[in-house]
């Protein structure tokens, strides 16, 4: 006997994500979910962000990591408001883990919350956390075919960052091909080139700041 059902598999996650979204909106926090493969430079981007605009805006961080607290320790040098979430075997953060992380932050004292997701370009994309925007981070070192192979993040992101631009002279990376793939998968997404460890992240900082400016006027 068949029982027909039409139900989104991630419904339970999505319900908690809407609660998070409301909590964050009420506190006036602009939240981004930072998604990139292992070693693409997510923590380095956060460090550079604190260096660049840490004195202008109040930024809190939630870091998802499989087992260690290394990223949280790196970020704690810059920011008192960092919460580490160990996902254990999970390859992505889910809304419930973020829910628990939010309880440990003083949201009213923040303008921006950046969630460093677990290094992975597939699973994290499908799990809504309650963020305002998803940010996809690729890097020159990973190869120029990564957008084509991971279309989901390209389609879902509001902004894509291509990191480690300083390595371009040293590796084979067809920048035009990468750009074409991105434009074909998601014609609307903004693609910006950055170099986190060189501190060359201006387009990213401008993008972040533009969102809190908008929030202040409402």
């Amino acid at each position: 006997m068949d029982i027909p059902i039409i139900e989104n598999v991630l419904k339970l996650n999505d319900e908690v994500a809407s609660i998070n979204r409301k909590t964050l909106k009420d506190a006036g926090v602009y939240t981004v979910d930072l998604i990139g493969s292992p070693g693409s430079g997510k923590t380095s981007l956060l460090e550079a962000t604190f260096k660049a605009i840490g004195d202008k805006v109040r930024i809190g961080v939630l870091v998802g990591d499989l087992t260690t607290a290394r990223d949280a320790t790196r970020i704690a040098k810059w920011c008192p408001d960092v919460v580490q979430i160990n996902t254990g075997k999970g390859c992505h953060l889910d809304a419930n883990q973020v829910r628990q992380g939010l309880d440990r932050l003083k949201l009213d004292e923040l303008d921006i919350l950046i969630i460093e997701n677990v290094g992975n370009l597939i699973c994290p994309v499908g799990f809504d956390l309650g963020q305002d925007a998803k940010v996809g981070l690729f890097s020159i070192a990973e190869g120029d075919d990564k957008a084509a192979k991971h279309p989901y993040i390209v389609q879902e992101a509001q902004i894509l960052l291509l990191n480690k631009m300083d390595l371009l002279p040293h590796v084979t990376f067809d920048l035009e091909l990468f750009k074409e793939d991105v434009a074909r998968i998601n014609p609307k997404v903004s693609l910006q080139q950055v170099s986190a460890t060189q501190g060359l992240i201006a387009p990213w900082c401008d993008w972040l700041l533009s969102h809190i400016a908008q929030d202040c006027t409402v």
Partner: protein
Amino acid sequence: MHEFSLATSLVDLVLKHCPQDEELESITVEAGPMRGIDPQAMQWAWQAATDNTAITGSKVELIQQPWKLHCPDCHTDFVANDMFTNCSCGCQKTNPIDSDTLRLVRLTLKEPATLCT
């Protein structure tokens, strides 16, 4: 791993819908190509995730949907097996739409064995 996280989410949903006194034969899940789900990995993940639950021993039928593409030139939508398929109008800038479905569509219960005496 990726399939495992979906399997865990599915177990919660299925347990909610499955009548308690019936035995579950299989579940049917529809997945878009954006989700990148491997059927074999999904089967193993389901076995592991249902272990020690009331629905252990059941199977997953995975319906893999094709890509749905949109042509910005002639404004038609069509399905294809490859994400980078050009439109029949010649346009090479087609982009994927609605390709991230992930839903549970059906539970199939075991027919009760008819007892002959």
